[in-house]
């Protein structure tokens, strides 16, 4: 073990942690939607890729940095998610899983091929002036863009936590998630809350997309991979648990970075799937999930 190796390991871990925070935000959207209405959003990665494309377009055609277009994208996605839940998904709540799967698969196919039709198959990325800036912390070097994206992701997750613990709507949503019947009995408009939840979940993943485009180029074909990645993260962290989604994001981000360093970059998702299999078998409620949930 040379100090060179330790340094590159520390570098990989820190890079993985930063990417992992954005992963966590993405997974948070999936976790919130599942935790509240027990609908598995098989179009999650596709929604994020749409967010990445919107941020890219904002930058390419309007010269707006993704950090500035992020609130707009999040608001748009909230509205779209709300509408999507109200129109398409609502009738499918409580239906067999394979029907929900097929519905969201159809939505996913439409989204990803819509991107393909509009933006083409080429890889798109953002070249900002701050692209090569970095911060030094002792011997470690942090990419400025990655650090900013990670901080923004944490800030948004913090806002979400405030929303769910401090606001009336947020608390009502949690009540409906804990006890659907009870929520109906005390007069909560559960259908509206569900639509609100889907909107919040979509806004999360849209915001994650706007951050992700600053660190990774986008192609339509990435969408399915992101859906899988989001699943891996929330299952590892614990479906329905907010802390779990964030911690799962960090864990997978770090494991990817370290596997890329120690093994081969192409083997990095093998490690993630290995972790997923282990967690499913040994602790199916996830690392941070409540048992029996």
């Amino acid at each position, binding site marked *: 073990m040379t100090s060179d190796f330790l340094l590159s390991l520390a570098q990989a871990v820190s890079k993985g942690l930063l990417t992992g925070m954005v992963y966590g935000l993405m997974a948070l959207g999936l976790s919130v939607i599942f935790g509240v209405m027990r609908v598995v959003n098989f179009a999650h990665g596709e929604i994020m890729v749409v967010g990445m494309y919107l941020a890219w377009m904002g930058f390419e055609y309007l010269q707006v940095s993704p950090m500035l277009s992020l609130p707009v994208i999040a608001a748009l996605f909230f509205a779209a998610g709300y509408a999507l839940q109200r129109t398409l998904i609502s009738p499918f709540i409580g239906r067999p*899983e394979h029907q929900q*799967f097929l*519905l969201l698969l159809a939505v*996913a*196919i439409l989204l990803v091929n819509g991107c393909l*039709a509009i933006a083409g198959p080429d890889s798109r990325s953002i070249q900002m002036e701050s692209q090569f800036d970095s911060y030094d912390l002792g011997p470690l070097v942090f990419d400025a863009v990655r650090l900013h994206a990670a901080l923004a992701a944490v800030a948004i997750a913090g806002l979400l936590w405030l929303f769910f613990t401090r606001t009336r709507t947020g608390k009502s949503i949690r009540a409906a998630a804990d006890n659907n019947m009870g929520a109906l009995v005390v007069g909560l408009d559960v259908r509206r809350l569900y639509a609100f939840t889907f909107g919040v979940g979509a806004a999360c993943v849209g915001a994650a997309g706007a951050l992700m485009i600053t660190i990774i180029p986008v192609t339509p074909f990435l969408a399915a991979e992101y859906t899988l990645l989001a699943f891996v993260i929330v299952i590892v962290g614990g479906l329905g648990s907010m802390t779990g989604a964030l911690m799962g994001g960090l864990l997978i981000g770090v494991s990817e970075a370290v596997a890329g360093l120690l093994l081969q970059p192409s083997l990095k*998702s093998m490690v993630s*799937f290995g972790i997923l299999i282990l967690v499913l078998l040994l602790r*199916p409620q996830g690392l941070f999930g409540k048992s029996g949930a």
Partner: protein
Amino acid sequence: MKLIRRLTDGVPSRALWALGVLLVALLVAPALLGKYGLSVLILILYFAFVGQAWNIMMGFAGQLSLGHALYAGLGGYVAAGLFFHYGLGPWAGVFVAVAAAAAAGAIVGYLGFRFSLAGVYFALLTIAFSEFTRLAFDHWEWAGGSGGLFLKVDSTVDVWNLRGGPLLFYYLILALAVGAFILCRALLESRLGRYWLAIREDAEAAQAVGVPVLRCKMIAVVISAGLTALAGVWNAFYYNNLFPETAFAMGRSIEITLAPIIGGLGTLFGPMVGAVVLTGLGEVFTDASEYFHVPGMKQIFYGLALLVIVIYRPAGIWPWLAGRLGIGERRP
């Protein structure tokens, strides 16, 4: 004779006649269809067959697998690899292929069922194993790695080594599809089939009345994986190439699930009807999208079609169609 009587018991005679006419039509179809027509029919039969195989696990026993590409890919790779490296003909290799896939199915199934994963969790376990295997094959030299495994294309017909044109593969897949159909009918009529339906409807209640739940689920996944491996072997020798990227792709797994879901989960005709509808739509959309010169147009049509079907016929096309035709194969 007794077996035939048991299989046809309670089936109206006009339905039997219709099936007979359909079989004869499929047997003589190559003489009437052109090259293109035959290739479409081959595709339909392929999806009907793998759909039937998947349906045993999900439609009958209620276990959602989204990783069936694992079994198809494994079957194809084993048979093609044995042929490629050791010259072992596919008629012998197929046994190894089926055994390998059945073993993989048993491992995935045992881990999933033993740790009582259900629904989405079980589906994710199947995806994870399939993806894990894809990445492993990507880096496995014997199987050609990510560069793929290629079988020599030979125009001479050699049935013993499965070398030949579309006609050979047409009759093979027809035999498989017919065989799977009869097998599924027999399974549904058996005690095991009743156990599966009981488990699908309520596993806990089934357990309580003494159904050996774990064993029945295991049998379902092993049969389903074994049949899917047959499709994989057929696929490998029909197309003569294998890539981990496509053989184990999640898209391949999803493709396998669509015909039975669209056609009608748990029904015998569902996978067939679904295969006809989806393949037919796919061909129509391929033609239609050529007018647009936009990438992804075919898939957009396809997505819209899926959306319309799942909204208006969530239980599948066949149960509705059968009702309209007055045949009424209810979902058993």
